[in-house]
């Protein structure tokens, strides 16, 4: 059967994928992180302007394990991680699957800058475990993984690469267009780069900088133009978080998008949460990078279309 043939062609990348997953797990277990599983099917996701949950009866499938992970932080758990499937409706492309694998890890008592060091160490460790050394080659680009990696603010990135400045792009609603067409393809080509200091409006669950309320303590990791991870210092102000959730929910209602109830238990738990930082990294994307695959289809055993 030819479906079997197509599957058999994937064995090389699926072996790399397995090694990557085990290496990630070992990295965190060796640092005494606790591996946690939280429910995939939930009643109330964090409202996001551009992420559509997949419905499951009256509940939905998680777009991220974030809410449960943060409730654990609020309950006193400190270093926790989870490798799990996340679901986002309508996201399908060369780098997107509507069901994909994520690792999220959280550190209590730290901020997003600590997570940058985690990324440098984690990826170096994983690359080493699969036999790559300091360099990874992806689609003809050779990226040096030795730290320290580059850091650039969103404002600088716009100034360097985009047709418009950051403020103009935000006003004209061309931020995302500039990101995909001008900025992302130039990020992390010679060395991985942390794109940080996102505008506050683009980090619904992120804390804003004390010195500048227009800026969120958020970064994204890019390697060879591939977006790999999203991190922030967590917002712990329940009133502010509720206000943001209500604003997004309201916008969704105006656009006739389905709105779920607000995650009340999560909001209640926020006041008990100490300052913490959390990050989500796409495992499929990491495997694409390390196995030099240009499409996400070849790093998963089955795409939705092949079922």
């Amino acid at each position, binding site marked *: 059967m*030819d479906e079997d*043939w197509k599957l*058999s*062609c994937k*064995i090389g990348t699926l072996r790399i994928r397995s090694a990557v997953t085990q290496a990630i797990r070992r990295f965190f277990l060796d640092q005494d992180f606790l591996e946690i599983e939280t429910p995939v099917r939930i009643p109330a996701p964090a409202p*996001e*302007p*551009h*992420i559509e949950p997949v419905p499951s009866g009256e509940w939905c499938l998680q777009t991220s394990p974030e809410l449960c992970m943060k409730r654990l932080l609020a309950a006193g758990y400190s270093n926790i991680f989870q490798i799990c499937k996340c679901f986002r409706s*309508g*996201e*399908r*492309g*060369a*780098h*997107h699957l509507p069901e994909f694998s994520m690792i999220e890890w959280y550190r209590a008592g730290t901020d997003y800058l600590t997570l940058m060091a985690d990324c440098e160490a984690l990826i170096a460790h994983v690359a080493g475990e699969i036999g790559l050394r300091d360099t990874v080659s992806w689609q003809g680009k050779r990226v040096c993984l030795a730290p320290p990696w580059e850091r650039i603010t969103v404002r600088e990135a716009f100034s360097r690469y985009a047709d418009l400045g950051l403020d103009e792009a935000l006003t004209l609603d061309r*931020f*995302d*267009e500039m*990101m*995909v*067409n001008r900025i*992302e393809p130039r990020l992390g080509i010679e060395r991985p780069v942390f794109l940080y200091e996102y505008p506050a409006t*683009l*980090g*619904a669950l992120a804390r804003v900088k004390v010195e500048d309320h227009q800026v969120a303590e958020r970064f*994204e990791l890019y390697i060879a133009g591939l*977006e790999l991870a*999203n991190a922030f210092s967590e917002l712990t102000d329940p009133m502010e978080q509720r206000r943001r959730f209500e604003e997004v929910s309201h916008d969704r209602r105006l656009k006739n998008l389905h709105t779920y109830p607000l995650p009340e238990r999560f909001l209640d738990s926020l006041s008990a949460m100490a300052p913490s930082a959390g990050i989500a990294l796409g495992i499929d994307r990491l495997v694409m990078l390390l196995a030099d695959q240009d499409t996400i289809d070849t790093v998963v055993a089955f795409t939705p279309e092949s079922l």
Partner: protein
Amino acid sequence: MYTASDLRKGLRIKIDNDPYIVTEFNFVKPGKGQALYRCKLKNMVNGNQFERTFRSVDVFDAADLQEKKMQYLYKEEGKYCFMDNQSYEQVFLTEDQVGDAKNFLLDNIEVEILLFEDRPLGISLPNFIDVTVTKADPWAKGDSVSGNTKPVTVQTGYQLQVPPFIEEGEKIRIDTRSGEYLTRVKG
């Protein structure tokens, strides 16, 4: 009427009254940002290409093209000749207008010629065609070193990757939209 989520390579849409074909397509979504649909579009009338990034709210009309069934006859000096079996009318398309379909033009294959304001601009092929493999290295059973695929050439000169058990002289089915091997054809 198409929406952005209908966009794909090969789709023909109307922009400013001209027919355009999507030559490249990418769904992109920057972290936490909106979904965007990056396209390269080619004007089917004058061949001009440009890039545009669409949003999920964008809508388009289908290109105003008429279809006429014709048969492929031959290629001469970079032009491809097709004939209407009823009227014996012949039309010629350039290599540019034929595009990737040139890899799948079997002798006498029936295609749809696409016309805009009575001018032939492009062609539409059947989704699947059966072709004969004209050049393939033999399969050494048990040879796992060379991997799970091998390149072969088919009767149109097109090269593609197929399972290692496909031999010269065999017939295979190809998906003309992706250019990929589908299955071996018996008989």
